């Protein structure tokens, strides 16, 4: 009989590619490949009423950055461009440990932090630096981000300098390293140069 000789007919798979293409194009269109990046910050907790105000900070230890509504920058009572902010802030953060009498730079205090003692020896001087950032309601967001970026860069460069001098690795290498010893070193550097950016309660400075 003819039937027994006939083979089972295969399903034509030629249109499979078309179907797959259709799906592919759908996913190509809907997909968003952008990796979200940004500047991470932690806001200060809300002010409680019954908590006494913190002790005043000596003006010498504060690096004041003001931005007005015309997007002009006043840094330590001097007009400044945003691009120069990083170097100025870095100079301030590092300070002058050898010359504590210099009034332009922050004071130092000897540290008893066990991690710092472990890696840097006892009584290692720590700067009491604080960076105070105040902006007007009319300041542009672009400038604000530029300032935040510059200050973050100043801190990471200051940390890197210490890390390379002391451990021969950059701060990020230490922080992202798999070894716990390196992570400890990164922690010590973080304790040595803590990122202290204080944002004042918003005000209308005007200008």
């Amino acid at each position, binding site marked *: 009989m003819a039937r027994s000789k006939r083979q089972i007919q295969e399903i034509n798979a030629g249109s499979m590619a078309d179907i797959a293409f259709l799906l592919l194009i759908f996913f190509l269109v809907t997909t968003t490949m952008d990796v979200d990046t*940004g500047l991470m910050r932690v806001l200060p907790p809300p002010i409680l009423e019954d908590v006494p105000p913190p002790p005043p900070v000596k003006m010498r230890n504060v690096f004041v950055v003001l931005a007005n509504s015309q997007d002009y920058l006043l840094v330590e009572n001097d007009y400044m461009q945003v691009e120069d902010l990083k170097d100025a802030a870095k100079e301030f953060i590092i300070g002058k440990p050898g010359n504590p009498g210099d009034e332009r730079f922050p004071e130092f205090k000897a540290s008893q932090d066990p991690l710092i003692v472990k890696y840097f020896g006892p009584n290692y001087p720590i700067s009491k630096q604080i960076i105070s950032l105040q902006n007007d309601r009319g300041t542009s967001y672009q400038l604000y981000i530029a300032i935040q970026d510059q200050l973050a860069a100043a801190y990471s460069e200051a940390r890197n300098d210490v890390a390379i001098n002391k451990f021969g690795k950059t701060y990020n290498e230490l922080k992202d390293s798999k070894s716990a010893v390196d992570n400890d070193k990164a922690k010590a550097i973080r304790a040595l140069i803590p990122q202290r950016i204080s944002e004042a309660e918003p005000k209308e400075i005007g200008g």
Partner: protein
Amino acid sequence: MQIRKKGKKEVPPVSTASLPDIVFMLLFFFMVTTVMRETSLKVTHVIPKAKEVAKLERKSLVAYIHIGPPLKPLQSIYGTEPRIQLDDAFALPSDIPTFVESVKSQTDEAEVPLLTYSLKVDAKTKMGIVVDVKQELRKANALKINYSTSKAIDKASR
């Protein structure tokens, strides 16, 4: 010596049998990497650039707050001033505590402290509205924030 056979010789057509396989491979790649948009944007923003950026990990633990001028078709109703968008609707700074609570209630309790609030703000926005949002976030105890910025390509240094 003659190796090749004489006679008519045609170039055989390229087999397209493996085409579906290749397309399927691409398809699976996109299916796996794709993240469906959860909200449709009603505001436009050109996000500022910065160098010291960090990657946002674990997108399920990120809540977005968009600030920027409304989209062109909506400008006749909402004006051109920057507005806040939470989820799918325009909002006022005073709506933020409710938004924070709803985000927190949708998250596993153990992971609430890891929640990050990503501020996607147009570069030309004035700080006033951003400051209001930050104050509301503080009041709602949503302290981990992230200023969304794209990575600037570093030309000058290093």
